[in-house]
């Protein structure tokens, strides 16, 4: 085994790895000449857009390539042994015992019909021939290692009995069973909530240090990388375009791709009026990669030479390499383009604004029924007694973990769900009092923008028909007029009008979300409820859609309600924000106030859990997860304040009495008995990262 500069053992050495996927008509060069190494106790982050070969690189090392995938060149040395060309049986033994893998979705990676103890013991049985009792003992040991409470009882549980966070811990336990030297985690926290993500990342980091493992972290989340990785490798179109220490990549990057990736992510506390950077277009088709620099067609500063010369990795410092003929120097300062903020931002709020949506004591309960007799077995309190106003022209953000009721609230606001109690009035009209016919007519005023535009478009309808559908339902205009409306909107959202002939599957993700957005605007609504508008999109495309939403708000005079679990997106888009926890609205206020001076311990913890895409800040913050435990069941919520089971400040009073929303300062409400103390606590100082980084 060779050692790295610091004298640590190199666990993984990959040299000039080439992996191709052979398809019926073409060969995709998924990984094209990638070299890297991982030392013991080190975390290597691999970042890039989807389709850039990150996952294929990881799968090549693991030998888990999809059908048709083959390593066609290069070398992979695992703990000193060459894997390329090794026979299958030998390979199986070597890999199983040396590498552990953690996948994105813990639900589909676990076998639903076997206990978790059995699944942890499986590799021990295969590789070491361990007996039943040995397997069980080791499983219990591993479960306690990954922080599962009462492992002796839990070892006989089935996957469905565990929450998402717990399942991911079990996956980690399985990966650790054979004391691997290398752990490969492919988007390990993407499917998890931000509070759980913080817990899992802390666990991974702790395990890595304790056992001196190498960790390869594949992710698209720059915040996760900033907080976890020692070194970062940026991949584009199957190649490494830049690699270096985390500090180098984040603060003195040389490749325009790295620069654009970093300046396209919204951050909490940044100047909201500045337009986000974005990378136009899509990564190239790797069955026929372009000549010259592969990033050139999308590059902001590409010149002629870029389209003809293929740049190779060149050193900037001893640890920092990049592949670009016209490198940049450090982060891009975005200042030129500005958009006006939502009309009711504080500066202009002098004249009393008009309330567009007024929600009072709104509740929604779902009854759980079971058996032939449809007996009532429980009630899910999805939304309980929520009150707030949305002013005309503003953007109202709703944040919270999954299962907190934010989607149900959004669906009630557009009339797709009927409230169980309470009132919801739109422009002074109580929606519940309308009869069916009036309701149908009123629907044109409020529209929903869906998370997954693919699912919201009928796969068997051409885009033109789909876009015209709302107009023909509402019987607005002749066919020619309808087509004119559709064409104008398509142009406005940045699509060519010819696309009306296409089917949804013929679009890329970003284009589809543009179509989805256009569809929400066809009827000329006044309120658009956007449910996770960018969560399903790649980083580079997110900023395009966010910019577009901003721009359309101004030209179409829209009021937005943006629902998201991504605090940074809400922080950038919203003028005011409401934080939800287990069906209740626990804090409301202007976005910059709530995010810089939270008055509820939950908001505080949530903000501290968000990974900040700045290594300096991320390293300074303590690595302890800010919120422990998991979301309680909404069928049987805790008494008093719902958050008390996870709250560090909870007292007897919290268990007895549910705190009402009270005003803590101008326009800022919080539902906590100790809101004033939280607000005043000096312990919490949210560092706002430099806005233009």
């Amino acid at each position, binding site marked *: 085994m060779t050692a790295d500069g610091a004298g640590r053992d190199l666990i993984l050495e990959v040299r000039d790895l080439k992996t191709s996927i052979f398809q019926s008509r073409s060969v995709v060069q998924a990984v094209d000449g990638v070299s890297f190494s991982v030392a013991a106790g080190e975390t290597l982050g691999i970042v890039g857009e989807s389709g850039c070969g990150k996952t294929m690189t990881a799968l090549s090392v693991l030998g888990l390539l999809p059908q048709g995938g083959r390593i066609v060149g290069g070398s992979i040395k695992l703990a000193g042994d060459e894997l390329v060309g090794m026979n299958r049986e030998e390979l199986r033994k070597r890999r199983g015992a040396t590498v552990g893998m953690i996948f994105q979705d813990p639900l589909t990676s676990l076998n639903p019909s076997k206990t978790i103890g059995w699944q942890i013991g499986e590799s021990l049985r295969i590789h070491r021939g361990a007996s039943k009792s040995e397997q069980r003992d080791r499983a219990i040991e591993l479960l306690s290692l990954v922080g599962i409470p009462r492992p002796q009882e839990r070892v006989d549980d089935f996957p469905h009995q565990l929450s998402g966070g717990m399942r991911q811990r079990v996956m980690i336990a399985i990966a650790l069973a054979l004391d691997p030297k290398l752990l490969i985690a492919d988007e390990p926290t993407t499917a998890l909530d931000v509070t759980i993500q913080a817990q899992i990342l802390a666990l991974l980091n702790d395990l890595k240090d304790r056992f001196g493992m190498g960790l390869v972290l594949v992710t698209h989340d720059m915040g996760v990388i900033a907080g976890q990785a020692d070194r970062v490798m940026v991949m584009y179109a199957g190649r490494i375009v830049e690699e270096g220490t985390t500090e180098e990549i984040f603060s003195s990057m040389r490749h325009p791709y790295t620069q654009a990736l970093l300046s396209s992510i919204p951050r909490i506390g940044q100047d909201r009026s500045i337009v986000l950077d974005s990378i136009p*277009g899509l990564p190239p088709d790797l069955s026929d990669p372009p000549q010259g620099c592969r990033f050139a067609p999308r590059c902001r500063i590409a010149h002629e030479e870029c389209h003809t010369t293929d740049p190779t990795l060149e050193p900037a410092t001893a640890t920092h390499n990049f592949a670009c003929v016209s490198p940049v120097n450090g982060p891009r300062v975005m200042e030129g383009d500005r958009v006006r903020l939502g009309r009711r931002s504080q500066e202009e709020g002098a004249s009393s604004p008009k309330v567009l949506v007024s929600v009072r004591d709104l509740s929604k309960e779902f009854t759980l029924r079971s058996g032939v007799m449809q007996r009532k077995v429980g009630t899910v309190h999805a939304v309980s007694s929520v009150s707030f106003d949305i002013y005309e022209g503003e953007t109202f953000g709703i944040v919270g973990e999954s299962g907190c009721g934010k989607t149900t609230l959004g669906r009630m606001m557009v009339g797709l769900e009927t409230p169980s109690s309470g009132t919801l009035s739109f422009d002074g009209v109580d929606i519940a009092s309308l009869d069916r016919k009036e309701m149908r007519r009123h629907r044109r005023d409020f529209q929903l923008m869906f998370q997954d535009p693919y699912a919201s478009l009928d796969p068997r309808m051409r885009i033109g028909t789909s876009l015209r559908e709302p107009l023909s339902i509402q019987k607005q205009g002749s066919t020619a007029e309808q087509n004119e409306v559709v064409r104008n909107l398509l142009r406005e959202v940045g699509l060519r009008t010819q696309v009306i002939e296409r*089917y949804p599957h013929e679009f890329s993700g970003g284009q589809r979300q543009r179509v989805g957005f256009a569809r929400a605007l066809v009827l000329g609504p006044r309120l658009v409820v956007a449910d996770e508008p960018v969560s399903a999109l790649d980083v580079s495309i997110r900023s*395009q859609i966010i*910019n577009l939403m901003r721009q359309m708000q101004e030209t179409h005079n829209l009021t937005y309600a943006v629902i998201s679990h991504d605090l940074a997106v809400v922080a950038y888009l919203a003028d005011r924000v409401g934080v939800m926890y287990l069906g209740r609205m626990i804090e409301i206020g202007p976005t910059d106030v709530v995010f810089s001076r939270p008055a509820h311990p939950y908001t505080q913890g949530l903000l501290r859990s968000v990974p900040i895409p700045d290594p300096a800040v991320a390293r300074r913050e303590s690595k302890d997860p800010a919120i422990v435990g998991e979301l309680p069941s909404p069928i049987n919520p805790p008494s008093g304040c719902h958050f008390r089971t996870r709250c560090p400040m909870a007292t007897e009073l919290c268990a007895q009495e549910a705190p009402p929303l009270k005003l803590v300062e101008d326009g800022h409400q919080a539902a906590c008995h100790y809101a004033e103390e939280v607000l005043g606590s000096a312990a919490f100082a949210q560092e706002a990262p430099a806005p233009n980084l």
Partner: protein
Amino acid sequence: MATTVDSVPLGAVEKDAKPRSLLRIALSTFVGNKLAVISLAILILIVLFSFLGPLLYHTNQTATNLVLENQPPSSAHILGTSPTGKDELGRLMLGGQSTLELGLAVGVLATAFGLIWGTVSGFVGGVVDSIMMRVVDAFLSIPFLFFVILLASIARPTLTLIIIVISAVSWLSTARLVRAETLSLRTRDYVSASLGFGAKGSRLIGRHVVPNVLGVLVVNGTLKIADAILTFAALGYLGLSVPPPATNWGEILSGGVNNIFDGYWWQIWPAAVLIVLTVLAVNVLGDALRDVVEARLNQR
């Protein structure tokens, strides 16, 4: 319009692939499956044989001619004669007509009725759904043969009656399938979206549910045809079919089986082969159609 948002013209970066129509994708998938193409050819031949054959090959299929009974194949009777002295080849053609007519009719009837029943049940839900599905359960619990024998003892069977009887049993599984599909479709985002635009239930069913169920339905309908042909043959074999001079392949088979020890192979094999070929071809075609439907979904 301010240029704050970089608009991404289609085709600037990604290749401007010509939109392939769904029909073209479907066709190329189908043609790629050799077995399916062969099956389709076989079916076309059987249809031509049954419906065009009698125009070229004239036989008397009404009069019983005991002088000519059980003749082996000869130049006058290419496939010999039946126990009642009718030309066997001509009888196969006649039997093919009723078999194919019945198969198609049952396929269409059962599918149409199952579609209506299933979508209404699945879309309306609640009490209506419960009642409609219990009706299906009740029908399914009637033993089929008993039902047919009972009917045959009451009424004189005609082809139309048999079509109705077989359809009455066939639509049940289709209705269940369509209901399950509808239940999953009505929670799709695009149905929600349409509802959010103010669409009525009838529009949602007509525009979004039915077109998306159609793929599965075509496959299911094809397989129903094969089932119906087999059932028809079984009924003919048991003598519960349309009385002579009408005939079908099952009935021909049953006549031949009476003479099985005399070695009159021409009374058994041709009918048997035709039944097997037809059912096999229809089934292969159904499988191929399923691939086509799924291929279309995979392209998305």
